């Protein structure tokens, strides 16, 4: 099982701060698709992903127990 954390407006849109998802063996890109569909999130493509607090590219394969965080880059200034 994997824990998925949502930051900033992703959290508002998902309606939860975190979720438990079975993601071992999937890539970050695949998880983004699943999560976007499950939680009706519009723009997960551009969110950055961290696995266990380390930046993870879209091709990275998730392991059992990994904690994945989605952090949307923001532009305000």
């Amino acid at each position, binding site marked *: 099982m994997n824990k998925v954390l949502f*930051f*900033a*407006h992703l*959290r508002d849109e998902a309606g939860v*701060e975190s979720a438990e998802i079975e993601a071992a063996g999937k890539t970050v890109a695949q998880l983004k698709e699943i999560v976007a569909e499950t939680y009706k999130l*519009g*723009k997960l*493509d*551009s969110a*950055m992903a*961290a696995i266990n*607090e*380390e*930046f*993870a*590219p879209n091709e990275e394969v998730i392991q059992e127990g990994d904690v994945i*965080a989605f*952090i*949307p*880059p*923001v*532009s*305000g*200034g």
Partner: protein
Amino acid sequence: MSTRYSRQTLFPPIGKEGQEKISSKHVLIIGAGALGSGNAEVMTRAGVGKLTIIDRDYVEASNLQRQQLYTEQDVADKLPKAAAAEKRLRTINSDVEIVALIGDATPEKLAELAEGVDLILDSTDNFETRMAINDIAQKYKIPWIYGACVASFGMSFTVIPGVTPCLNCLLKTVPIQGLTCDTGGIIGPAVQMAIAHQTAEALKILVEDWEAVRASFVSFDLWRNQYTSMKMGRAKDPGCLSCGEHPEYPYLSAENMTKTTVLCGRDTVQIRPPHSEGVDLSDMAARLKALGYEVKGNPYLLSAEMDENRFVLFQDGRALIHGTKDLAQAKSIYNRLLG
């Protein structure tokens, strides 16, 4: 004023030697909004040798809630932000050479400004300009510090050419994202927090304490009491077109720039973003309504109106901003609503 920097020279990682370095450096700040005014004030008080700041906007009433250099009089005088910022910064520290420019930070302008600059502090409100800053920084080997905030959330990341990954390694493309300060709001403390991170990194770079520079990507949410540091060891992409082995600096080329055109005789500006992944019109319509706009539309476009602002937005991201011939102003309205 010999004691002016005493509290900073007493801090061992700066010391007298560090203060001399700070006073010999040139910092370029892109944007004089919330982050720009805060970053400029901290750098000016710290006694940087030269500070250049560029911005295309005017001071408005809605800026006063979080943009620390500006006053009610600046709003009444409709001062350009760069001019109002310069006025205040001069009263704070006459040791600092301040160059304030009113205008758009286009890639050409950035290339011109980069000459002799030791550090670029990102304080812009859109990713198109940030990606251009990222390419300029790589091309001319200048460290730059990304900072951004919206609502109670914010982030910062320090890019050192040749050492760290760059913003293009992380994002690959200009993110399309619906949330800006004009659609999601922003609170003053989130601005202060982003400034704290950007200016701490700035001082480290100015005194050349490279070991102290933060290697991770910080994000925080002050309302939700979150703070997270993402390690970036594996983020550097050797094939990155901005910082990789064969750089092409894609965001400096015309095809990647927003095209802005005054439509002849119509008092209207057309804005065409470069990479259109498309806009979710029903989502945008809901956001604009929440802001008080009167919105009409169909599946292909929406039309929005409030006070003297009127514009039409197409599904591919193209927009017509009515009632103006001012390119910078039109781009400013577009970026504020679409990021």
